[in-house]
């Protein structure tokens, strides 16, 4: 009888040991549907920050880096980077051209139908209470705006007359200062110096339809001076980017109809002193630049552009210290928006938000997912991590 018991126990032990699942063989979760995956050309670690229909743009990271605000079809929303919680901050009939987080946790927006057409608009501030769609108007006749380096102040360029512009400073939602010194012409874009004491201005001179001048405005003295004037009908695209290595800006002229009418813009660099701009070193003479943004540390420049006029659009980072110019994405079939305000660095300088969609065939498409889950069918925001190679170790 004892033999029978021993045999039974041994058999049970052998069977249990043989049938037990090791921890490594847990069931593998099914892959998400193809519609939910990011196009591989944006990089293996790129992740969507939005989905579904809507014309999106003007991404802006909160100072903590945990939220990204952007404009959808004119109204302003923000999304938590990790939690996918979406908050709308304005009514849907609001028309915003630009939205920026400020240090007090509110969004400052340049809006109005005129603002999206390059005419003066108004600056509004969102209600700090989340979920409120109320906005407060803070300034009118605003041509352009930019937050200061720490986002405590917002610098405004104001229309001061028929071909004259003024500069003003907003702080904590109040008009802190309106400078008496004016700028001849119409300011079309503004960006701060790394120390926040000065701003670079792109200026359209009287009688011109292009922004062909670069000015520097000193916020301490209230004085402005012209530092560059572009020739050959070239126009400055978007805001100049004031870095630790000078002022970079994108400029060019519309190409001829024989070149498919696509503008051919180049990246330039100049010192913040009067002088002639030079082609930005390191990017290659065939590079076609779109939007550009300086990193929070001021040492790198993110640029959306093409290596040459036939190349696909990609995101590049120019290291201003080493001169390295690296492709961050290897996209071939996405249209990355090249608007001057369509990319933004995270506050830590570890990723860049871009706006892209799949190339449209112009034919009807059918997808096996709800519209609000689709990614590349519409313009959507993506967070693209920026890895900075470690500098080579110095020989001992």
């Amino acid at each position, binding site marked *: 009888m004892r033999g029978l018991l021993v045999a039974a126990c041994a058999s049970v032990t052998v069977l249990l040991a043989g049938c037990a699942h090791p921890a490594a063989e847990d069931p593998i979760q099914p892959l998400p549907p193809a519609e939910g995956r990011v196009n591989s050309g944006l990089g293996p670690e790129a992740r969507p920050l939005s989905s579904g229909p809507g014309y999106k743009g003007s991404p802006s990271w909160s100072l903590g880096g945990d939220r990204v605000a952007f404009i959808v079809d004119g109204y302003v929303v923000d999304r938590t980077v990790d939690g996918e919680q979406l908050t709308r901050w304005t009514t*849907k009939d609001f028309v915003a051209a630009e939205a920026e987080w400020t240090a007090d946790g509110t969004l400052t927006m340049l809006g109005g139908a005129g603002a999206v057409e390059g005419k003066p608009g108004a600056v509004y501030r969102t209600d700090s209470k989340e979920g409120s769609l109320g906005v407060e108007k803070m300034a009118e006749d605003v041509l352009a705006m930019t937050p200061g380096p720490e986002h405590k102040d917002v610098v405004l360029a104001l229309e001061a007359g028929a071909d004259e512009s003024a500069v003003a400073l907003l702080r904590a939602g109040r008009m802190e200062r309106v400078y008496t010194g004016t700028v001849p012409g119409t300011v079309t874009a503004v960006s701060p110096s790394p120390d926040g004491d000065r701003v670079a201005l792109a200026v359209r001179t009287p009688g011109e339809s292009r922004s062909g001048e670069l000015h520097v405005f000193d916020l301490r003295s209230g004085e402005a001076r012209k530092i560059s004037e572009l020739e050959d009908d070239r126009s400055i695209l978007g805001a100049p980017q004031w870095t630790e290595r000078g002022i970079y800006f994108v400029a060019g002229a519309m190409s001829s109809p024989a070149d498919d009418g696509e503008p051919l813009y180049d990246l330039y660099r100049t010192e913040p002193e009067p002088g002639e701009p030079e082609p930005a070193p390191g990017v290659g003479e065939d590079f076609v630049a779109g939007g550009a943004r300086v990193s929070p540390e001021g040492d790198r420049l993110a640029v959306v552009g093409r290596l040459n006029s036939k190349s696909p659009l990609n995101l590049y980072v120019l290291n201003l210290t080493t001169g390295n110019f690296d492709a961050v994405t290897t996209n071939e079939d996405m249209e990355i928006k090249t608007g001057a305000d369509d990319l933004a660095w995270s506050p830590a300088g570890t990723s860049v938000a871009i706006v892209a969609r799949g190339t449209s065939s112009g034919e009807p498409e059918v997808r096996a997912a709800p519209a609000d889950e689709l990614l590349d069918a519409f313009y959507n925001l993506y967070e693209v991590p920026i890895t900075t190679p470690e500098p080579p170790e110095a020989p001992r």
Partner: protein
Amino acid sequence: MRDAALWAAGAALAFLLTAGAFLFLANLATGSSAEDLPATPARGKPGPALDLDLNRDRLASLEPAPDQELLLTVENAGGKDFSNVNLTLESSSEDTANPRSRYYRRTLRDLKAGENVEVGFLLNLSEQPQASGAPTAPDERSEILEIRATTPEGVSVIRTAILPL
């Protein structure tokens, strides 16, 4: 000899007991195949037996005008009949600031296993004034048709058609 017989009998008994226990546990873990169908299917997850076929040529023939007929084929590709198939179609603009959405509904009765039926929707795809002066995409705005088919048995399928009208 007797010990050997006892060993053999004991081993066989233990094997049967253990195999039975594992069979019981495995059945508890998986349940029957009929219970695999979720009561409320996840959004966007196509059901196993229902399919919607949207013909591209027919989609391409739609115009931004009223009275546009969209024909689609509903197919029961499974082995069981469906008593009802509820079809809902939402037509909306790619412009999310445009509050206009139009909804259409059809119900199919008794869709047999293996059967496919063509269903028509008469859509109003006339252009709506832009909701605001907000900047728009550089090319034509699209019309979005989101079509859902569901059955009381919990089977569902969804298709989203994007029409560059």
